[in-house]
């Protein structure tokens, strides 16, 4: 009986320790989350979208775009809104891993109920084999569900006032440099395919399920990028999309229709698009979305004051930069 009491006391003690630890983690996580939400200058560029999407008025975004730097260089939500009235947000991160894509979507779905999720397909070729991907999956799970891990570094802002201010129009990166791509045709027709990493297949299933459960359609989108795309990649995605009955739009095969001119639209020799390239892609994409999906025009709704204000800023800046770009 005494032994039983002793064991019970020990278990109770350990349990109490763990409960206090969980409370501490939750509280510190909350403090860091709140600080980051209030002032996203504390957050490094890569993670800004995580907090910014949560700051958008609830259930106002119809289209969520996910992916790596190709997404935030190619899709401009302000243009989509201005021309088609589509409310969208680019929840992208440089070098976004597929695990991050999944958790980013989870974050976005906390406050939004999009009709459509666009996944820029370059992220589907980023995946380590075996153990490395398992390690990444654990870490990303931890980052998402125990935010203290993801936001731990903001203490620097309190000690040395280190901040990361950055202009950002609904997740779009305003980049205006021009470094032409000059290596010619890059989508050489072939039957070959580039294998999708196993971890991508696993997480794609999770992303599809998440979209299904939340009533959102999923569109796979390849944005123009000679450095990152090839026909082999196109074939793999096409095969995957056919197998899963997903919509797939590869703009690398529609460069003429989009109007891409690699002399003026390339940011860095064919890796990313600049503002001019992004505008062309967004216009084409907007038209495609309007034709293919039932997306409402939100330009006249109540919450559009903020959008209008931001659009005005965006327009002025874009016009100024485009003028400068083409002067050169």
């Amino acid at each position, binding site marked *: 009986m005494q032994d039983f009491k002793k064991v019970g006391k020990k278990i109770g003690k350990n349990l109490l*320790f763990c409960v206090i630890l969980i409370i501490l983690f939750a509280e510190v996580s909350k403090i860091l989350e709140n600080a980051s939400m209030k002032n996203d200058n504390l957050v490094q560029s890569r993670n800004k979208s995580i907090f910014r999407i949560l700051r958008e008025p609830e259930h106002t975004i119809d289209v969520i775009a996910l992916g790596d730097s190709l997404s935030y260089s190619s899709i401009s939500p302000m243009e989509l809104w201005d021309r088609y009235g589509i409310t969208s947000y680019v929840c992208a991160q440089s070098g976004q891993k597929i695990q991050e894509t999944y958790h980013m979507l989870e974050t976005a779905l906390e406050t939004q109920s999009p009709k459509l999720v666009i996944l820029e397909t370059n992220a589907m070729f980023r995946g380590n084999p075996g153990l490395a991907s398992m*390690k990444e999956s654990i870490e990303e799970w931890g980052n998402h569900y125990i935010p203290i891990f993801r936001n731990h570094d903001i*203490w620097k802002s309190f000690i040395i006032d280190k901040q990361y201010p950055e202009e950002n129009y609904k997740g779009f990166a305003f980049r205006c440099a021009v470094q032409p791509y000059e290596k010619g045709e890059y989508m050489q027709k072939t039957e070959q395919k580039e294998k999708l990493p196993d971890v991508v297949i696993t997480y794609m299933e999770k992303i599809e399920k998440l979209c299904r459960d939340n009533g959102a359609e999923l569109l796979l989108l390849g944005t123009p990028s000679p450095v990152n795309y090839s026909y082999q990649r196109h074939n793999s995605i096409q095969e995957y999309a056919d197998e899963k009955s997903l919509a797939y739009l590869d703009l690398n095969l529609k460069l003429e229709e989009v109007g891409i001119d690699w002399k003026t639209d390339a940011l860095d020799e064919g890796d990313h698009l600049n503002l001019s390239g992004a505008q062309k892609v967004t216009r084409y994409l907007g038209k495609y979305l309007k034709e293919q999906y039932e997306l409402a025009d939100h330009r006249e709704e109540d919450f559009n004051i903020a959008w209008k204000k931001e659009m005005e800023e965006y327009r002025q800046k874009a016009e100024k930069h485009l003028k400068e770009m083409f002067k050169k």
Partner: protein
Amino acid sequence: MGYHTSLYLFVFLPIALLAYQFTPKKMRWLTLVLSGYVFFWMISGKLVIYLIGTTIWTHYIGIWLANLKMQCKIHTIGKEKQEIEITQKQYRKKERLVLASGILLILSVLAYLKYYNFFVRNVNVLLDTADSPILLQAKTLLLPIGISFYTLQAIGYMADVYWEKISAQQHLGKIALFLGFFPQIMEGPISMYSQVTESLWEGQGITGENLSQGTVRVLWGLFKKMIIADRLYVFVSAIFNYYENYSGVIIIAAAVGYTVQLYMEFSGCMDIIIGSGKMFGVTLPENFRQPFVSRNAAEFWRRWHITLGTWFKTYIFYPVSVSKIVKKWNRFGRKKLGKYVAKVGVSAIALFPVWLCNGLWHGPRWSYIFYGMYYFVILLGGIMLEPVKDKWIKICHINEEALYYKIPQILKTWVIIFIGELFFRANGLRAGWQMFKSIFQSFEFQKLWDGTFLTFGLDKADLIVIFAGCIVVAIVGMIKERNLLGELGIKRLWLPIRWAIYYGLILTIVIFGAYGNGYQQVDMIYAGF
């Protein structure tokens, strides 16, 4: 899968602990062996065959040696003294041969995999100088993880059986457990068979006490590695990789930075390893004992990478010291050259192979060999100067325990350590020499405070954290060194204070750890050796 990674800490270790606990006591050793092989396979794949091969070979040699000893005993029963001596001599010879072949085979595997290309490179330089048209071909050789560690353990076991310090183990599983216990596969500590095998074999259940003690030790290791070492890595790499651009105080900072990084990283990983062992109820030998309070290089090596030093002392230094050649020299030296010269000679003969092996053990690089020779010269110099030092202390009536004497001694040892680590880390011996020379060129003290240090990848906040972390480690080191908390250690403290320390430690690692966005996960340095 390093011991500091999430995969080890949150997946592998907990699964291994659960599997161990749910296995019947008698079979727990098997769970540990299998966990070890899975761990090895996850890092080195099919190269696990080398570990299995070494295990079988070590076991076989042990049994062979034991059989020879048994046969010798049987053959000497009832015989005359002279006959016994002859029989014993014959068997001694056979045993020596078996031991030599046992060691030779596993050393050859290590030498081939680790040093073949180094040998080829150097022979090719010689052939090229001699205008030879034939050059040797380098090979792509994959090195199994931890080969330098388990090879030494296997040799130690064979030698211990040969010297009859232990009896040969009949059960292959015990040898497999000794060589393949997963927490120590990658970085040691290099254990002796008698130190760990029984507690490994015992299969005692996981207790809350061991689990909590082990966890605290793991956390302490993570503190050192993630808060200090991984931050310093950025700073140190920025200077060592572009050393041509720097001189004076920057090079000194790099040498000091690397020494601290290496200590925090290696001793931190050791804490994680020893903590992991503790969770299974296994007490692994300590590898560090506050090395930076050492008063000379010899003491430093008794406090730094202790198990490697002990191994070299036991299996190289002592056998050489009592070898016939050394005894002969000692007799000759004492007679003809005097006690002092004989002592220095004996020390030189016994220390030289120890430090050559120490350098070579770290890897196939001239800078490592230089590192070993550097300590050989310093230690031998210390022995040579001992009479002068003793005389000087006597004449000047110096109290050796007084701070005015102790502190300069410790500082002198620091200088020796920093110079050694400068050569150890440099990208080659030539680079090391260049860096050392550049210390004396354009010293520029003002670089310490003019912001130059903020251009090496760390900001002011990082430097503050490194500094604060080092102070915490120094305070804990001081408490340990002076045994201020006694045997019970932190357990002596009042529970709320103890818990506050645990929570503080966990939150400090989570908040100030160099991981995630903007940081690079740094591999364990000694796993590469």
